[in-house]
């Protein structure tokens, strides 16, 4: 059993297609989940009646059920309600709902560090609520919440591999599919491990860079 580099080179187009799909699904879901997080966190922080209870229930439910079951419920179960989504959009929806729950908590944690006294001080200085949010609350919240938001995003990227279970041809699916045809197990696993590691490490590198830059005012 020797390591066959030529085989990997031959499989590059297939792997690249899988990688591209992984990136597409992840990028779209990360964006949407942050949007969900912002809405949910706003509802929690502003304590909108009824809605905030729903958000709490949603977060608890998502965090205490496996992503795989959520995915199957969305892909196979929702058509029972007459909602038929394509493979791609089922994947995006389930990843968005899953990560959205975590993003709500991340963003809320950030917003909650902005104390009430600060808001009162800002208002007494004559700042409008919007200017208070833009100039004071948001920068503080982002600094606290961003690391965990990026962490959730990285998890989402890894979890896009769950979508192979419903048959979306992303990176893991391509690899497993190839293995069942050509039996070049070691080569394929080496390839996807390296690719996933590269993706995750690149993202965490940019995450730590961003964190460093956001902390500039606090560095001595």
């Amino acid at each position, binding site marked *: *059993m020797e390591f066959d580099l030529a085989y990997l080179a031959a499989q590059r187009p297939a792997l690249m297609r899988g990688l591209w799909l992984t990136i597409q699904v992840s990028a779209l879901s990360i964006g949407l989940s942050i949007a969900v997080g912002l809405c949910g966190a706003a509802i929690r922080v502003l304590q909108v009646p009824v809605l905030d209870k729903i958000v709490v229930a949603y977060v*608890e*439910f998502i*965090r*205490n*059920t*496996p*992503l*795989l*079951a*959520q995915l*199957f*419920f969305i892909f*196979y*179960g*929702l*058509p*029972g*309600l007459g909602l038929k989504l394509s493979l791609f959009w089922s994947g995006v929806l389930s990843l968005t709902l899953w990560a959205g729950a*975590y993003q709500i908590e991340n963003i809320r944690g950030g917003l909650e560090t902005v104390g009430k006294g600060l808001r009162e001080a800002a208002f007494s200085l004559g700042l409008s609520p919007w200017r208070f949010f833009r100039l004071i609350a948001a920068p503080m919240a982002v600094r606290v919440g961003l690391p*965990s938001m990026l*962490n*959730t995003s*990285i*998890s989402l990227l*890894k*979890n*896009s*591999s*769950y979508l*192979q*279970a419903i048959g979306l041809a992303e990176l*893991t699916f391509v690899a*497993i599919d190839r*293995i069942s045809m050509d039996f070049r*197990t*070691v080569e394929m*696993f080496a390839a*996807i*491990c390296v690719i*996933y*590691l590269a993706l*995750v*490490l690149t993202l965490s590198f940019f995450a730590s860079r961003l964190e460093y830059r956001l902390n500039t005012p606090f560095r001595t």
Partner: protein
Amino acid sequence: MDLLIKNLPFILQGIAMTLSLALATLFFSTLIAFVLGTLATLRFAWLRIAVKVYVELFRDIPLIVNIFFVFFVAPLFGLELSPFAAVTVGLSLWGSANGTEIVRAGFNAVPRHQWQSAAALGLKGWEVYLFIAGPQALRSILPPFVGLLTLLVQATSLGALVGVTEFFKVGQIIVERTTMMEGWNPAFTVYGAVLLIYFVICSTLSWFGRWLERRLKADRSRVAPGTPVVEQPVTQLP
């Protein structure tokens, strides 16, 4: 509803399988985590780096890939693992990586002066770990380990992908069987019920974790004034 009652023994069997998978994994994860986590607190830089590489490697690779890796690659080395064993190993690699971080952070949270005064009293290295630092570290280690168990219960659903008949697979089988034999698709009901049952199991566990955390924290504030802020390890979600 009839469907669920009719399949009740099968469902219970699946839940039992899920829990035994989670407990087996927790056992191995804890074992490895305590060894590696303790090693990472010793004064050898190369050991720390080696542990760090292990932790980062298995946290950064998707859990599914981990499991498939064990499942497909072990036979190439003449190791015929059953699906159950393969999933246990795959999950343990991930669980122990996260557990190691928890243990390491737990030891680091023990105040410096505790180590120093233990050394000043002439205790040997292993005695300090066993009698002084260990019990204190355990306080900050236990609650996140319950959290880890919750995530492990959820992660065992991946066993379905390599053919372990755990709870999620049971749901899948019921859906397939009913579609084939009775000609209607109960996916919505069955997967909905599956989600609910997972929710009950996991939220009970998370509730227990939070309860434990509150209890141990209350204790802690009494013990050491000026205890440093506990560095919370971040569990990479499965």
